[in-house]
């Protein structure tokens, strides 16, 4: 097996990657995937050499990231999706963005565009039968939510197949980021998904800082992690509120809403924005804790910590919620593994994946968090896991705030080295975020790839809907709480 093994946020020179012949490349890729590695990237790293491909795989057992390079004579290859469903979306993206044709792909579909080939309209997957009916929803939905299109194949109430078409939020962030000024790069990374501002800004800053070999003070790293845990807490509370609302438990929903306000207002105390915008800068953070701010944040969080236990108790002891949550939208561990689900959705199906633990970065290298996971894979697991993760995050914040390391919060950053690359991973509240930056011979960015956890997990939602009543769709959707913007970029 020939591959380059690196760690999270470790810089490597592009010349270190062994670029293999086509057959050898796919043989090693298949071998690695057979060994249980997860694909986290599949793209041509250099636009000037469009026949070259790299596959980035993560190994959760050894904490290594494997990079395999390949040179293709023609821009087509035999699809791996039937054997490794986790590659499905990556292959579609490769075709859409760079024109690599995966031959015998089970269902080649657009990822962010309307049609597959120019103006030829895209044909949805359809089950042919007199008894099957089709339900089409979106892109505009009933509530204040992002746009996406859902196509259900139903038999009566039961869903047999759900196809999810996204791309309505596609703003072209990956190409914008290449040419942007440093301050704009950070703002763009904050705008990948407005609910994962910290997660994405962290991954982006970490990528640039690793490339330029900038040391971040422990204090800045700790502030970053505290902010990240605040974001996780807030968005998990938000999801629980949404799920309570979907089953009609108004008092639980409004109580969660009140607590979320306290958490995001704490972020605003720190950096002025309720979603953590403006906190990150290359080399550290722009804002420091003061005694006064810490006091306000701690008092907010103490209220949250006390009250949330009561709301959890109310929600999870209600018969109504048990009936709706349990055994609804089940994703088995086998399926979740095959589809390459990540983060919160994977942990709800018994897969112990957490970037903070397997690929530790920043303050998590010194102050580890506990891994939580549940095995039932249903809406209940995805809801209850959030309660456990909120508790863990809040404990982390309380501990760190108590013993904040001294030091400055920002270091100077130098320029980027030529012909180097880095894979930077962080754990957003939905799961693993991967930013991968590649520089050309002048030290300018030539490729920037972003993978939001939603890129993997939307397929998980499709799986969860199989043999589930269509009336349970809103609840299942909320239990995954995926990002449209993060997928569409």
């Amino acid at each position, binding site marked *: 097996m020939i591959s380059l093994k690196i760690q999270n946020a470790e810089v490597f020179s592009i010349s270190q990657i062994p670029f293999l012949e086509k057959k050898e490349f796919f043989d090693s890729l298949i071998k690695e995937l057979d060994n249980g590695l997860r694909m986290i990237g599949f793209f041509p790293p250099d636009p000037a050499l469009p026949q070259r491909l790299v596959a980035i795989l993560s190994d959760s057992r050894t904490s290594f990231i494997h990079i395999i390079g390949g040179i293709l004579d023609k821009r087509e290859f035999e699809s791996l999706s039937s054997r490794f469903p986790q590659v499905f979306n990556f292959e579609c993206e490769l075709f859409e963005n760079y024109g690599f044709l995966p031959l015998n792909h089970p269902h080649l579909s657009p990822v962010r565009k309307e049609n597959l080939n120019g103006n030829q309209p895209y044909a949805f997957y359809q089950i042919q039968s007199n008894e099957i009916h089709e339900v089409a929803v979106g892109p505009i939905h*009933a509530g204040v939510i992002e746009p996406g299109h859902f196509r259900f194949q139903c038999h009566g109430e039961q869903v047999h197949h759900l196809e999810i078409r996204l791309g309505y939020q596609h*703003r072209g962030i990956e190409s914008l980021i290449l040419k942007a000024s440093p301050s704009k790069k950070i703002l763009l990374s904050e705008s990948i998904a407005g609910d994962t501002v910290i997660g994405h800004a962290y991954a982006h800053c970490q990528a640039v800082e690793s490339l330029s070999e900038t040391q971040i003070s422990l204090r800045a790293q700790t502030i970053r992690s505290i902010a990240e845990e605040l974001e996780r807490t807030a968005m998990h509370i938000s999801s629980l509120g949404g799920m309570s609302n979907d089953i009609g438990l108004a008092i639980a929903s409004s109580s969660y*809403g009140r607590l979320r306000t306290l958490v995001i207002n704490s972020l605003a105390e720190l950096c002025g924005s309720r979603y953590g915008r403006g906190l990150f800068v290359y080399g550290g953070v722009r804002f420091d804790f003061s005694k006064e701010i810490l006091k306000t944040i701690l008092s907010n969080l103490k209220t949250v910590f006390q009250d949330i236990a009561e709301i959890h108790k109310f929600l999870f002891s209600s018969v109504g919620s048990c009936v709706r949550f349990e055994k609804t939208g089940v994703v088995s561990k086998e399926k979740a593994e095959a589809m390459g689900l990540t983060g919160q959705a994977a942990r709800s199906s018994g897969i112990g994946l957490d970037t903070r633990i397997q690929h530790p970065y920043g303050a998590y290298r010194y102050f580890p968090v506990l891994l939580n996971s549940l095995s039932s894979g249903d809406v209940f697991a995805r809801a209850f896991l959030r309660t456990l993760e909120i508790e863990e995050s809040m404990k982390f914040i309380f501990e760190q705030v108590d013993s904040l390391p001294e030091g400055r919060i920002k270091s100077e950053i130098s320029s980027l080295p030529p012909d180097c690359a880095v894979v930077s991973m962080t754990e957003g509240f939905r799961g693993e975020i991967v930013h991968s930056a590649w520089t050309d011979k002048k030290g300018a960015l030539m490729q920037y790839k972003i993978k939001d956890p939603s890129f993997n997990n939307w397929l998980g939602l499709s799986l969860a809907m199989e043999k589930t009543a269509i009336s349970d769709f809103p609840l299942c959707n909320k239990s995954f709480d995926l990002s449209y*913007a993060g997928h569409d970029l």
Partner: protein
Amino acid sequence: MILDAIKLRILQGDPIVHNVKNAVFPKRFRGLPVIQDKDCPENCRQCLEICPNQALSLNPLTLDLGKCSLCGQCAEICPQSIIDFSNDYHLAVNKRENLFISKSIKKIAPEKASQLIKKYFGQSLKLRQVSAGGCNGCELELNALSNVNFDMGRYGVEFTASPRHADGIVITGPITRNMAKALEIAYNALPSPKIIILMGVCAISGGVFQDSKEIQRQFFETHKIDLYMPGCPTHPLTFINGLLDFFEKKE
């Protein structure tokens, strides 16, 4: 069960923001920019260079709030501290040109709506939101408007599921190519008369995405905008106050 529900209700206490006009904001919140009556050092372009959205222009120094993401980096870098961001969250206006902040401007507000607009929309206002390529930030804040803290429903303003039931449309996001058609269809489905509200800097000017090839803003060539709500994302209280001021609703 019912006792637990009552307990939760007691825990809620009184979380609502009563005084929406003069709410207390975190000290670091970046609201209305203030430009001091001072001359810039000669050839200084630091703020222009650091601004990610090209929101600043010189002679005289002017900040376009319709492009500004309120990141505050211009204020940080200014050697003379000429630019600063105040805590003032009253940012809504009804004319695009009123979003240009120069040194004489200390406060902005929408002009009062005409009698006709007030007659139609002054009492109850139902809005349909369309997310046209945003990042979900503004959508989060719109959803926060219906929570127990901001409770916009108390002013008779609510979001509807169908555009057919709506009096106005709230647009978030820079309008991507992929959403342009859907937005137009949704807008046409609203019965007339109808108003258009732009929420967030992306909707107003494209914001950080203004140079993207993937956005398509022809919608604005044919439609008149009634209210601009700047911010990134727009704070819920900015939104509420914008509506209250425009329609002269009672607090």
